[in-house]
């Protein structure tokens, strides 16, 4: 039960971080075109994205994190991998593969706007990686390597 709760928290963490990155990146792009954006507009956009975009991102990240945590758990059992670093790397790799698959099958070239640039894509991968570390850290039996 604790593991399930922590997993769900990890998904929400990844999606919230991703949503925040999306808001910041997008507003920076708009401000380059339109000039300074008021603090109220920044906050309203972040809140809007957390309410409307974060759940979509959570639905995308849920299976990615699930599979990548299982895979990294098995790998660390058989290989001498750092559980935290391994979980981060596998989650990031899983996210990258998933984004490529989504974009290959979605009607538009790139579904998630943040995924349009290399930096934005790396940030999305890091969001899932950080969530994987979060899950591993709080489910570890204090034998972290």
């Amino acid at each position, binding site marked *: 039960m604790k593991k399930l709760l922590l997993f769900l928290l990890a998904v929400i963490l990844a999606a919230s971080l991703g949503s925040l990155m999306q808001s910041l990146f*997008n507003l920076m792009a708009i401000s380059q075109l339109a000039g300074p954006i008021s603090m109220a507009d920044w906050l309203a956009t972040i809140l809007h994205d957390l309410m409307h975009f974060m759940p979509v991102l959570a639905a995308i990240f849920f299976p990615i994190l699930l599979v990548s945590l299982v895979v990294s758990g098995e790998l660390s059992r058989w290989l001498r991998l750092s559980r935290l670093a391994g979980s981060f790397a596998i989650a990031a790799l899983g996210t990258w593969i998933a984004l490529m698959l989504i974009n290959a099958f979605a009607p538009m070239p790139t579904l998630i706007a943040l995924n349009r640039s290399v930096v934005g894509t790396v940030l999305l991968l890091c969001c899932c990686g950080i969530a994987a570390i979060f899950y591993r850290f709080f489910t570890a039996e204090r034998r972290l390597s």
Partner: protein
Amino acid sequence: MTRFIALWCMGFSLLLSAGATANAFKVDALTTDLENPWGMAFLPDGRILVTEKSGYLLTLSAEGKRQSRSLAKLPNIFTASQGGLLDIALAPDFAQSNQLFLSYACGDINANSTCLASATFNNGELNDVQSLFHAKPDRRGAAHYGGRMALLPDNTLLLTLGDGFDYREQAQNKANHLGKIVRLTLTGGVPTDNPLVNEAGAAAEIFTYGHRNVQGIVYDAVSGNIYSHEHGPKGGDELNLLQAGNNYGWPVATFGIDYTGARVSPFTTFAGMQAPLHVWTPSIAPAGMTLYRGELFPEWQGNIFVSALAGKALHRLALKDNQVIKEEVLLQERDTRIRDVRTGPDGAIYLLTDGARGQLLRLTPHS
């Protein structure tokens, strides 16, 4: 009691007016085997040319009977997803020159764009194909090509373009053609009176900018107005009144949001950017447009008709002083994506339905 009678009368008159419109026309399916039709043009002798996205050009009789179907051998044509052969328009002197214009996606999946070519049309075949314009820069993916055309009385041509989906911020960059409407001479040159022709660093072909994906444009010879519509993202489809040099806002000012739910911009309007005449939220996906000046439907004079893909309907807009004062949604019962709408030389309204078994429909008065 008086109020009740007044309300009843109002409701009854609304029902009558709605019924009158619904019964005002009949729909004939002239052709039912078109493969992803995209655009059409009417020859002086009444025949109809239809483009198919896969690259074919069809010649149909005025009654829709197929006379020819030939592959348009356009330079570097790229057919994938939203790309392919797009619109068709006849040159003003077509009766003498047989010249026509074709817009299409060109390039490959990694580097493609919207292109314009001219050709002469003889016996169902295209000859003397010449490249006139290639929107720059090329981009990746296969989305948002625009591709509609409107001929102006000064022998120039407006070609609508798209932002390439992944490059939306470029719609505000006047140095390139992404998210623009360009104005060209009929040989593909730059008219010397284009609005940005003297602006350093700006692409001289630009007529208007700040567009997302414009798939409807019409010039009204009576009013001199040019209208366009464009796809918004999730919501925020727009009808615009075009004026040379103006900025139409995308992606800074929009009523739409990303398909994922994320905000595109905190602004729906912005200083220095033209607000739309009309907005559709949720999106109808407007894909074609005509401004009715025919004789068969006198009650629809000056109305704008917009064909909708996602909306699966034909939208009739009545305007007064460039304000939309009434919108009526027609043909919903057909539950069909409608790609294009044109006014025929006979005053009938012609529609192309979308899909692998597209139809050519004709609307005429019931009587």
